């Protein structure tokens, strides 16, 4: 298996900077997700890795070899497209064997291989059908088979699950993850769905507007976002953000605003020196806020009105209006408060994130 190194890659289309100076590495056998909203440059990056786009500048290494000028078909990659791109005039068998035929392989050589991989992916019984005659999920497996039949060193996937219905998506997520695990193939997976990225990937690169915002494993991305973009992109329901100022009050440090007074924990305090000014944005995930029906002393609670409740079955999302801000709080507890009544919110001090308001960078960066 091969590792990938991208160094200062830029891809411009005329004036449009689709990919603007990114660098990252994918280790041998690693599953790397490129995550971001539409138009952020992740697909462009993938197509550049495939060799379909040529970099405007920058280098791409597969292992120790610079592959900038290597043609897609010589890069030994397998690729799955969002639309699957199965040739409609060919049968499933012919689609899967296409890459081997293209390299000049004869039927007697590849026949066994095709049968083998088809069995492995559960589509062995569909080999005579045309793509229009099989379901979406089956089409996807054919696309996977076609990509993997030449036993590539690198596996590239461009939002392969977005055309599937929700139930099938959950199923295939696990299957693809298992497949990758078994084959130990270096994989780059593009998606806009954070759940896919968080559940499948070993590491995630979060993209925005052609730049990488952060690279890390799911735990780092989720619990230690480097900047505001990553913090608000990851997590459902998204993180709550409050504009505040850092102030010293009676020997303790707080982030305060008109309605909020949030204590800064001792672990967090040393990082405050990274700030350029006392103006910050406080971030707190909905699951790290606790709601109390009564005001309790010795806790720095924030007062608010219960605005609306969104029941989710297992959890409930409480929307609490504090001044002009609506805090989303998620909890398994069922509160006995009515909408419109006063409630009190407590923030888990260890889980508070502080971002410099101007640079949008986390102080823990």
């Amino acid at each position: 298996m091969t590792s990938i190194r991208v160094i200062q890659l830029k891809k411009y289309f005329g004036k449009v900077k689709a990919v603007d100076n990114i660098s990252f590495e994918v280790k041998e056998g690693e599953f790397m997700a490129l995550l971001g909203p539409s138009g952020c440059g992740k697909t462009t990056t993938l197509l550049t890795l495939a060799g379909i786009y040529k970099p405007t500048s920058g280098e791409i290494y597969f292992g120790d070899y610079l592959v900038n000028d290597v043609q897609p078909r010589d890069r030994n990659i397998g690729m799955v497209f969002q639309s699957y791109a199965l040739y409609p005039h060919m049968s499933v068998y012919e689609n899967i064997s296409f890459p081997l035929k293209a390299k000049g392989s004869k039927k007697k050589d590849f026949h066994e291989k095709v049968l083998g991989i088809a069995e492995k992916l559960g589509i062995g019984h569909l080999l005579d059908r045309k793509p229009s005659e099989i379901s979406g999920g089956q089409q996807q497996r054919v696309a996977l088979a076609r990509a993997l039949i030449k036993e590539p060193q690198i596996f590239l996937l461009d939002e392969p699950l977005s055309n599937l219905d929700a139930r099938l998506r959950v199923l295939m997520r696990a299957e693809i993850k298992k497949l990758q695990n078994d084959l130990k193939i270096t994989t780059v997976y593009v998606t806009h769905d954070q759940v896919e990225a968080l559940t499948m990937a070993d590491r995630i690169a979060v993209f925005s507007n052609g730049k990488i915002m952060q690279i890390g494993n799911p735990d780092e991305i989720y619990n230690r976002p480097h900047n505001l973009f990553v913090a608000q992109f990851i997590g459902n329901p998204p993180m709550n953000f409050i504009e505040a100022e850092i102030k010293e009050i009676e020997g303790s440090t707080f982030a305060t605003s008109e309605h909020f007074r949030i204590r800064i924990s001792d672990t967090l305090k040393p990082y405050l020196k990274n700030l350029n000014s006392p103006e910050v944005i406080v971030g707190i995930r909905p699951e790290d806020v606790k709601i109390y029906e009564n005001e309790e002393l010795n806790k720095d609670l924030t007062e608010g009105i219960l605005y609306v409740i969104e029941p989710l079955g297992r959890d409930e999302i409480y929307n609490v209006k504090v001044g002009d801000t609506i805090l989303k709080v998620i909890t398994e507890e069922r509160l006995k408060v009515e909408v419109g009544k006063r409630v009190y919110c407590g923030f888990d001090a260890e889980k508070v994130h502080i971002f410099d308001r101007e640079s949008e960078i986390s102080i823990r960066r």
Partner: protein
Amino acid sequence: MLFFLLPSVILVTIFFALPVVLTGVLSFTGMDYSFKWNFVGIQNYIDMIGDFMISTVVKNTFVYVFFTLLIFNLGTALLLALFTTTVSDRIGGFFRTIWMLPRLTPSVVYGLLWIWAFDPTDYGLVNIARKLLFGLPPQNWLQSDPMLIIVVANGFVGASFGMILFTSAIKSIPKDYLYAARVDGGSWFFTVRKVILPMIKWQILFVTAYQTLSLLTSFEYIYIITDGGPAFSTEVWALYTYHSAFQDFRFGYGAALSMVLVGIGVVSALLYLKFFRFREMIKEPRIEVDS
């Protein structure tokens, strides 16, 4: 609503519907420059079969249609479409634009260009090229290969129809298929053969059918360049019809000859409607693999 359709309906009825009927009627008369209506039954058709010129005309027509269609209207058109879509759009567009020139140029001027190109002295383009490249003496093309001249002249015009259609078809192939083919490997030829050509199958069929009819009934450029000569060696059916009617003033006979073309036209139109209307009604080609 009637108001909207009236002008068109009136004009089309007088100059299309009526002539169609009239042609049929006239074909049963022996009308000539005196414009007298003398009905002769099917005499014209009998004459047609016995006409000593007919076999030559038929042969010329088939040779002309076959070669122009194959080499230019299909062959060159496909080549142009495939090539101009492989290179960058600017360069490809440049060549496609140039290939549109013949079709847009008034026929008499276009004819002049080929008259010059095949000029029998060493002043003509082809003879110059032969002299410069192979050192050969000038040839009188009009005498030796008149069919070549008309196939080439019509071909350069004909190629642009298919070129436009095929180019648009190739461009509408979803990019993912082409990317997948590039990743999976295979030379340019392989991709063209296995992926692109099968996906524009319908367009190829349509161009073949449509252009065959077009060629069977064309005669304008032939009239201008060789006028059926020398000695009827390039006299195709449509031109023969024209000559009979407007040179020999045999209107009745000319109408009968025209009826053959009308017949071909009607049959083709019905075939199109059956085969291809189905395609026209569906906006997108049926190649989307969508779940």
